[in-house]
């Protein structure tokens, strides 16, 4: 039996992005060593995902990260529309 190791990332979507993809949360099984960019590519392949901008704001485990940040199994990745607080 062959088992394939993978990295499960809990992706959260908010506001306009949640509306465009029609979901607020999805678990993605990514290859080990995956980065934020890989998770974004996964989202872009979903219905409505092509509407995401090239470099959206992202946060890993409640802190801002860039697209090249590494993801570990169990990480939470939030994809954040342009901020509008204040």
């Amino acid at each position, binding site marked *: 039996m062959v088992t394939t190791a993978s990295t499960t990332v809990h992706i959260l979507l908010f506001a306009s992005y949640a509306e465009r993809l029609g979901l607020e949360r999805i678990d993605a099984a990514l290859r080990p060593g995956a980065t934020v960019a890989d998770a974004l590519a996964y989202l872009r392949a979903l219905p409505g995902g092509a509407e995401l901008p090239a470099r959206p*704001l992202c946060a890993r485990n*409640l802190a801002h990260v*860039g697209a090249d*940040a590494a993801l570990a199994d169990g990480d939470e990745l939030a994809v954040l529309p342009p*901020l*509008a*607080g*204040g």
Partner: protein
Amino acid sequence: MPFLTDTPLDLAGLIAEVTAPDRGGVAAFVGTVRDHHGGRPVVELEYSAYGAMAEAECGRIVEDTERRWPVRVALRHRIGLLAIGEAAVAIAVAGAHRDEAFAACRHVIEELKRRVPIWKRERYADGTVEWVGTGQAASLTAPGGRP
């Protein structure tokens, strides 16, 4: 005390939180809901947030500000449905003198707009509703975070 609240903001309460006998300079900022955006009349506005991260980011902003200037900072942001004129954000900063109070207060609101995951949806007089993105849109990296 959480930074996000669904009840009206109390600036006097925030000023009381930071005021002390050795802090003679108190600066405050209040951001309220405008009745127009892009030339269109706005009738109401709804704020939503990624709550856990918004709390964490507000905590980091307050800590960083209190480390950078000799001040105490109190900060609250409203979420939920707001009417025109209601306060969306309130900040009070107290220091020994006005220079650090003004500088730190300005820093807190600019960092909040740049970092804190809060969104607003405006309802216009013609009945349409839109998400408004006015702040940071491109990717940010947190200082001290994992690379």
